[in-house]
């Protein structure tokens, strides 16, 4: 379970960007690339080390006119942390 006030950010080992040729968000890292689907891209776009998990969920629900996304965002962030894609802003 992720504390709701935790503020995720992209790990400095990765660069997150929109890649026109792929028509997708990608994570670039030393000599490699992960192509992300739309929902993963939308979550990571909001992992700026400023917004809390709660704020990210609220933001996504507003942007996509949806509700009850918290569990899915949590699950994704746990996976992203295990992959080293994100870490948590300690300050």
């Amino acid at each position, binding site marked *: 379970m992720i504390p709701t006030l935790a503020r995720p950010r992209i790990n400095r080992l990765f660069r997150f960007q929109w890649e026109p040729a792929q028509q997708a968000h990608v994570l*670039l890292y*030393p000599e490699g690339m992960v*192509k992300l689907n739309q929902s993963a891209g939308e979550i990571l776009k909001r992992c700026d080390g400023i917004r809390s998990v709660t704020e990210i969920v609220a933001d996504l629900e507003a942007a996509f006119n949806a509700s009850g996304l918290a569990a899915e965002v949590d699950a994704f962030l746990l996976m992203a942390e295990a992959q080293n894609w994100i870490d948590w802003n300690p300050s």
Partner: protein
Amino acid sequence: MNAPLLVPPQALKRAGPLWLLAEVTYRCPLHCAFCYNPVDFAQAGPELSTEDWLKVIRQARALGAAQFGISGGEPLVRDDIEILVAEARQLGFYTNLITSGVGLTEARLAALKEAGLDHIQLSFQDATKEANDLITNTRTFELKRKVAAMTKAAGYPTVINCVLHRTNIDHLDRIIEMAVEIGAEYLELANTQYHGWAFLNRQSLMPTEAQLAEAEAVTERWKAKLGKKMRILFVTPDYQTKKPKKCMNGWGEVFLSITPDGLALPCHTARMLPGLEFPDVREHDIDWIWHESPLFNRFRGTAWLPETCQSCEDKEKDHGGCRCQAFMLTGDAGATDPVCPKSPDHALIEKALAEAERPTLVKPLVFRDPKNSVKLGRAF
């Protein structure tokens, strides 16, 4: 919301290359006996100009390439790599500098960082001063440790590459320990692949089976101990695993390399192959080279494969293996890679492996330097 999509390399196939590797020079302050550069590098034509490189970078990015590597030789001997990095970064490339660290001063590091350099891969040749200096035929060990500390202080993840071979593989425990001391995030342990100078020195570089098994055991112990703190990638040698590998994830599928003198290649070492015309980036654009040139289509896909491979269930996985290995060992670039046990030429590999078990056959190393290059005057 769906689970994120992790796309395996084969699914990233696309119109253009994903990787652009700029081998900006063959000049190098080190003289490593395991270098994959062509033995006759001293006979290559003049190096591309800054403008030529900028053109290549723009054309490759327009085709969708996302990774840009600068390598050599030692790229830092050129004084314009900051300009190339800045342009590549500005266009959206992830920029990688692959260096021995020799020539990386505080001032240059600051300039590269300012240019937007994303990543530095630093090569180490061994864990002790004596062994590092022996295999490179230089005095560079202390300098490398200094450079590693400097790049870390500049905020770069520390990514270390160490090529393993007969004379350093027994020091692996100490090599990994050194990487931990330095604070490395990634350590790539690349067993020597026998191309260029490494092929020339094969008998002196190939470890015994027991050495290799011990190295794998040491690596596994450290991996278990370090977990996420430091990722270790152990790249197994083709000869010993007997598993053919696709040329750079498939000939003309993801990877584009440009030689210092402007030839476009589907892998680092393809310029050794006979009877092929290597397109010059000053005469052709990257779009034509990638899609249309006879070179990039020569071994693309699987239609060209020899009979041994056509009937094999693994043909999509390995595309018949490495073209350069096939050529160096059999004289036929279109043959099944002899590392494959199904190859009619596989006995050549077994013979090389048997020789590695007989230390009396080990010969003095021939170091990679311009003098030896001119004297030998051949590709491998």
